[in-house]
């Protein structure tokens, strides 16, 4: 009994650094932020805060900038997440064949996702530059007129292309998943005369769905919070406003908070995003029942 109690005490002692900091820097700020979103806090009135009810939230849904930004962010997410998931899966499929030097290519595909955002942006600025930019020069070889990649029509496309460069980040998990598919499944299929595409559709894809699910969920959570890339791709200052089509939701929240000191309103904006992320995650979770394949003997 004492031995058991000692172990319990040791458990709580060992997790206490995490737990205390979680209370102090996780749970408390979360609820404090929620509280602030119902006040009129603007940076200097901490002493006499008024609660304003749902005012800030009503403001969010009537703020045309916020709604526009939310739309752009959902668009960016809807394009980026499926494409990058597909690219990461495609690259993993290519490498899943005992290619000579496979490790080198795996590193090449994975590397861009490691490059810090700042370096990535500096690199892609040269590619998209309209003043003799590289992408335009290449497109010129195919007789395509120069495109203003930072301009109104293509700014979001540029942002998406730049994000997709890092799509190889998912390749390691995909490769591990592919290795986990039993070989005899393919052998049995080939006896039945199945081709490459049938194998992919009937074996690979269903067995990879748990990993695809993980990638999609993480992709959605990350993409909805995008802000550094749109700000810095066009400007060179953290509080700069990106060009209109790249005015993403979190950019708007940062503008409200840091440029206009509208803390309470900014918190309401961020809580709306939080709820959107939560809702989308739940939708993905619930629908996963229909498209994610789980082995029946899960309790291994």
């Amino acid at each position: 009994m004492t031995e058991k109690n000692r172990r319990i005490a040791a458990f709580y002692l060992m997790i206490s650094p995490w737990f205390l900091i979680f209370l102090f820097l996780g749970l408390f700020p979360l609820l404090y932020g929620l509280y602030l979103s119902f006040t009129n806090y603007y940076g200097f009135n901490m002493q006499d805060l008024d609660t304003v009810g749902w005012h800030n939230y009503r403001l969010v849904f009537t703020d045309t900038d916020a709604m526009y930004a939310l739309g752009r962010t959902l668009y960016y997410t809807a394009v980026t997440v499926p494409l990058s998931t597909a690219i990461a899966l495609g690259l993993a499929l290519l490498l899943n064949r005992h290619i000579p030097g496979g490790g080198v290519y795996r590193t090449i595909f994975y590397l861009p996702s490691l490059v810090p955002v700042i370096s990535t942006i500096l690199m892609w600025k040269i590619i998209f530059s309209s003043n003799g930019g590289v992408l335009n020069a290449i497109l010129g070889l195919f007789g395509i007129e120069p495109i203003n990649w930072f301009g109104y029509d293509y700014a979001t496309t540029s942002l998406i292309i730049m994000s997709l460069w890092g799509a190889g980040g998912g390749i390691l998990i995909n490769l591990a998943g592919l290795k986990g598919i039993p070989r005899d499944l393919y052998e049995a299929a080939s006896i039945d005369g199945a081709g490459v595409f049938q194998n992919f559709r009937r074996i690979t894809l269903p067995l990879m769905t748990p990993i695809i699910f993980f990638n999609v969920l993480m992709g959605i959570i990350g993409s909805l919070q995008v802000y550094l890339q749109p700000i810095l791709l066009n400007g060179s200052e953290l509080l700069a406003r990106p060009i209109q089509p790249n005015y993403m939701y979190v950019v708007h929240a940062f503008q409200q908070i840091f440029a206009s000191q509208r803390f309470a309103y900014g918190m309401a904006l961020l809580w709306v995003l939080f709820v959107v992320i939560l809702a989308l995650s739940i939708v993905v979770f619930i629908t996963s029942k229909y498209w994610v394949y789980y082995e029946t003997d899960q309790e291994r």
Partner: protein
Amino acid sequence: MKARATWRSTPGNVVIYALILICSAIFLFPMYLAIVNSLTAWYSPPTIVPTGFRWENFAYATTLIAFWRFMRNSVILCLISLATATFTSGLVGYAFARIQAPGRNVLFMIVLSTMMLPGIVTQIPTYILFYKIGFIDTYWPWILGGIGGNAFFIFLYRQFFSAIPKELEEAARIDGCSIFRTYWSIFVPLSFPVVATVAVMNFQNTWGDVITPFMYLRQDHYPLATALSMISYQANGSKQIISQVSIAAGIIFMIPVLVTFFLGQRYVVEGIVTTGVKG
């Protein structure tokens, strides 16, 4: 693992190999362009083929702004984070993996759910909190954040420690080792792969983090990541940004990240793979 299927140059395999080469070229191309364009003459337009080899651009990258001071700040933040988060995450992960206690599963669910929580929702209230306590322009945000560990690292450590056979622990217990002794003398020496993984990832996160230092530190104390996103390279009296030197700085900035990845690659790949599959 050892038995490698031999690769034969069937038409299908040749097509796949060609596709791999094309994709590799596409993924490497931006890096190539960065290097080529960091070496051209100032203010020259972007180019695909090298038009010069002005290595002095790299020297200018470190002299036109207070580069070394910003780098020193980066190193300080990374050291704080490495010394704290790597250590406490291991302790917490060990407790979750090996010690039975009431409430353990609920608490671990909380750890996992903080991984899904968008950081931005807590960042601003934390900023207000730290501002009121007087933690602005101090290292306390990094020290406290580090002591709290990181949910993903805790998860990595837990996965790793869960896989270690029970017999080891029981032998130690029969010998009368306390739980902390057992952890310290049996589990820690075995955990090099996961420590390496966590250290590399921790370094990458802290090194590349732009926004936390932007919120908590004054400009003199910015690390390179924040400095490079706030300060542009300009010659005396000119407003025009010298993109060649900016890119050179961007290249220097990413070298430590790539080097640490290559040093820890074996372990990092393994770490990501086990969590992704079992998670």
